[in-house]
């Protein structure tokens, strides 16, 4: 009677390669879709509601997000996986609380950024994409932005890996840059799927640019460049504050934090032999 082994071997390299391919394919899908949309944006949208661009944007971005999820999800350790619902809940709760203060920001990506900081870029990307998918059960208009949300988580992880969270003043800068990239990538979705508005405030800015004669995509990209960087800078700051408010034992349980010295502070000395 052979028993299943009580121990597992160390993870191999071959499995890693197919994962890496899927990740690259997902990222490539998103990038290619964006470039295609920019090159082929309908010059005259007066002739129809941009169905072609909407289908391409939805198809390409969602395909990219799904490929990323398929690549990353099965290899996430359980300790990271259980944090994704927590991140989503934080996104929602903090977004609503901040909304009640009346500031003109969304602030709905704090959980995603926190996971990116603690568990790495891959986990951050998966968290962003999954958050959009699960949240679409309550508000379907969030679903098309899955790729943008994944990008935010991914860049947060990269910033953490590069040590940008060791100093407080670097985190908002990382957020600023992330906001620029995420806003630009999400602009085609906002333009072609939703016609350019997600609320009255942003609509006003887009109106201003449209009044100057810009194409819809250009106007929305400019609006995103105005509001997204500030928003993401605040999100990154709050996530950094939260990460530092947690006790050492909680944050150092993540191999990513330990390996790349994500958080400032003396790393605890090795225990005595």
């Amino acid at each position, binding site marked *: 009677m052979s028993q299943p082994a009580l121990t597992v071997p160390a993870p191999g390299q071959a499995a890693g390669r197919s994962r890496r391919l899927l990740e690259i394919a997902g990222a490539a899908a998103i990038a290619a879709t964006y470039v295609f949309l920019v090159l082929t944006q309908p010059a005259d949208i007066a002739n129809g*509601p941009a169905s072609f661009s909407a289908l391409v944007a939805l198809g390409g971005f969602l395909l990219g997000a799904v490929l990323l999820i398929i690549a990353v*999800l*099965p290899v996430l350790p359980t300790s990271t996986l259980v944090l*994704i619902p927590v991140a989503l809940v934080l996104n929602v*709760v903090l977004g609503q609380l901040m909304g009640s203060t009346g500031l003109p920001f969304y602030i709905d990506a704090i959980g995603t950024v926190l996971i990116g900081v603690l568990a790495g870029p891959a986990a951050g990307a998966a968290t962003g994409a*999954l958050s959009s998918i699960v949240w679409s*059960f309550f508000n379907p208009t969030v679903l098309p932005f899955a790729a943008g949300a994944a990008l935010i988580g991914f860049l947060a992880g990269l910033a953490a890996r590069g040590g940008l969270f060791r100093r407080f003043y670097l985190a908002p800068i990382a957020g600023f840059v992330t906001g620029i990239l995420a806003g630009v990538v999400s602009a085609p979705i906002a333009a072609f799927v939703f016609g350019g*508005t*997600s609320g009255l405030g942003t609509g006003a800015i887009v109106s201003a640019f449209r009044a100057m004669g810009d194409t819809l995509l250009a106007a929305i990209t400019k609006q995103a460049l105005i509001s997204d960087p500030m928003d993401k800078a605040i999100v990154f700051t709050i996530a950094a504050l939260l990460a530092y408010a947690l006790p050492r034992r909680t944050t150092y349980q993540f191999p990513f934090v330990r390996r790349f010295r994500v958080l400032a502070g003396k790393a605890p000395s090795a225990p005595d032999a």
Partner: protein
Amino acid sequence: MTLRLHPFTALTAAVCAAVVTTAAASWPFSVAVALAAVLLAVRSGVAGRVLAAAAVIVVPLCLSLLVLHGLFFPEGHTVLAQWGPARVTAEGLAFALELGTRTTACVLVFLLFSFTVSVPDLLSALADRRIAPQFGFVLASTLTLLPAVAGRLDRIRQAQETRGMVVRGGLLSRLGTLRLQMVPLVLALMDDAGSRAQALDARGFGNPGPRTSYRDVADPPAQRRFRAAALVLTAAAVVARLVASWPGGAGS
């Protein structure tokens, strides 16, 4: 007649309806789809919740579409009214109408799906199809966690008030009280998540390989055929739209 829909059938129907609506690009079609969704919601008894949730999402969107495209649409030629830089154009209004109805139809269809689907059945169906259980876990765990968090936040707020936190108006004070509530919440959630991860690993959640399902979800062949047909139809509609509107081709 209550038909027990396999969750994938409902999901396929919702996705196909949304995609076809997007491909069709005709507002009468979108309105028809929206009405059909409302009718089905009434039949399933969730009309109240679906309409309430949809209103919260759709009304601000449509209003701002109207303002944005009704007043500022440089590509429009047929000007109906003009106040300074704002021009009301027929093309702009038509654009707003098309987009508004399309978004409303898609939102209604997806909300109908998410309010009528039985999440345990969905998880069971995912397990049958060998889709990674992690996805189902995240979905179900979030749906369980969200209602509990509201109660938890309330308890934390009470605890902070007991320690002397007075909620006054004023932005800085509100932000300050946020900090007091957030840290215990995040700490508690992460601690719970940590123990839950250990329990899940111990119960075999991290196992690669197939899983079985305790719950039995029926998948009659009629529904399977319906799903296949719907997917084919949708693909055809998408291809037709892509071909018809390919940039540089005839029309757009």
